[in-house]
């Protein structure tokens, strides 16, 4: 069970970074 929790945490971490990159792109594309 704990394995699932930690693996999910890692997956969520990478998913969050993907959205974070999108946010950064949005910030720099503002005129």
């Amino acid at each position, binding site marked *: 069970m*704990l*394995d699932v*929790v*930690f*693996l999910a*945490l*890692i*997956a969520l*971490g*990478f998913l969050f*970074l*993907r959205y*974070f*990159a999108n946010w*950064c*792109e949005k*910030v*720099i594309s*503002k005129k």
Partner: protein
Amino acid sequence: MEILQIAIILIVFVLLCVPIGKYMYKVAEHKKTFLDPVLDKVDNFIYKISGIHKDEEMGWKQYILALLMCNAIPTFIGYIILRIQSISIFNPNHIKGMEQGLTFNTIISFLTNTNLQDYGGESGVSYLSQMTVMTFFMFFAAATGISVALAFIRALAGKKKVGNFYVDLVRVITRILLPFSIIVAVFYISQGVPQTLSANKTVTTIEGKLQDIPLGPVASLESIKLIGTNGGGFFSANSAHPFENPTPLTNTVQIITLIVLAGSMVVCFGHMIKKKKQAIAIFAAMMVLLLAGVAVCYSAEKAGNPVLARVGLSQAMGNMEGKEMRFGVGSTSLFTTVTTDTSCGAVDTMHDSLTPIGGTVPLINMMLNVIFGGVGVGFMNMIMYAILTVFLCGLMVGRTPEFLTKKIEGKEIKLVAFAIIIHPFLILMSTAIALSTKQGLAGISNPGFHGLTQILYQFTSSAANNGSGFEGLGDNTMFWNTSAGIVMFLGRYLSIIILLAVAGSLAAKKSVPVSSGTFRTDNTVFTVTLIVIVIIIGALTFLPAVALGPISEYLTL
């Protein structure tokens, strides 16, 4: 004599940075090198079996997404290997599978180039894990850091396409990390570092007792441990262990190898943007901060422990608690400073046993996180401060801020400010949480000011992806494994993404011609201003915490 030893090591380091930096530039820009006839074939074979289109160039965002994907997959595989390492493959010492929380901490630690170790290398990991997880990630994480720095520099040089992540990763490993690691590993073997797959030896000591002598493939891990600024030891005592670092000569080589690629990165930057003076200005700022750290650490350790002096113990050799006799105070102080200037984190002394002021130096080095730093990423952090310096100076003198002929606007500064705030936020918030919870306080082995420093050091080391530890902290618990794991993960990737985005934004802008109104960033004035800005920002964010920890401890001695 000790000062002369420190000076010689640092001069050798600076001299080596010039040819290695130029070689890194050739690798980065696909120029001809003497290894091409062999390595072109190896690289092409890797591209072919991996389906990599080597001519496909990426924008900054595409580069980041490739990096994230490429980092995520081995993380899951590594997690599984650590959990099932009890199988009888390369496991002659019958090591059991790692516990879940510790596995999470360990895999994030090695993925992020931190190498914080909450396990004991001798008893906690099999040879299979040492080779396929620890050593693999030491190459992989270091190559990721260098690759992203190369992309960052290409963007600063004005290229909208910043390269191909997969090609950079392969070339950095095959042309930089592997050749250097092989040479240094062979040297370590010649000095007595073990390189074997046979089981630990049980011997009878002269007292007639039985003792296990741990062995393993140490030399191959040891070389990349330092070259890649990784820092995770094969044994618990890290580079203080005689099998990892047996002689003063290996200690000297370890100091040089752990900082040389980080220093060479700055030289490579100068070649890539074709502005050597700019690289010299950045290198000088880093070097001044490094020398200041060495001077403070060495003088504090050389002065010894006043408490021991008062009870009549001679402190003529300095503070030798936790230090190896074969290295002495001089070499150890340099190692301690340099390993925390870079994000290496290997230790040849126990940092928990440093004097309060001596221990403040590694702590502040990691808090600033810009003095050479981890291969690639530390350099990017310094450029982030350079951008901030240009902006602040521009505001003060009424000039439009420009860096490398690109105008700095509010959107870049917004992201830079965010990147600067993340680091102290991760450290101070996590420390505050640990200090206000039972689980956090349970790790402290030395209550009082030193206990606060133990916690502060743990999170500073994690956020800076350094990995060295105040080993008195009892950190192999679910609380510490999970919290430090999360801090390491965010500390690594958030700043990488932000800085590549800033560089991507600058790359998309038109160059502004240099005029008499341009604020120069390649002279002594800029270097001094940059140093002052780094110190002011560091002091504003961290001074209260440092005052409560090591400074208070010093005042109570």
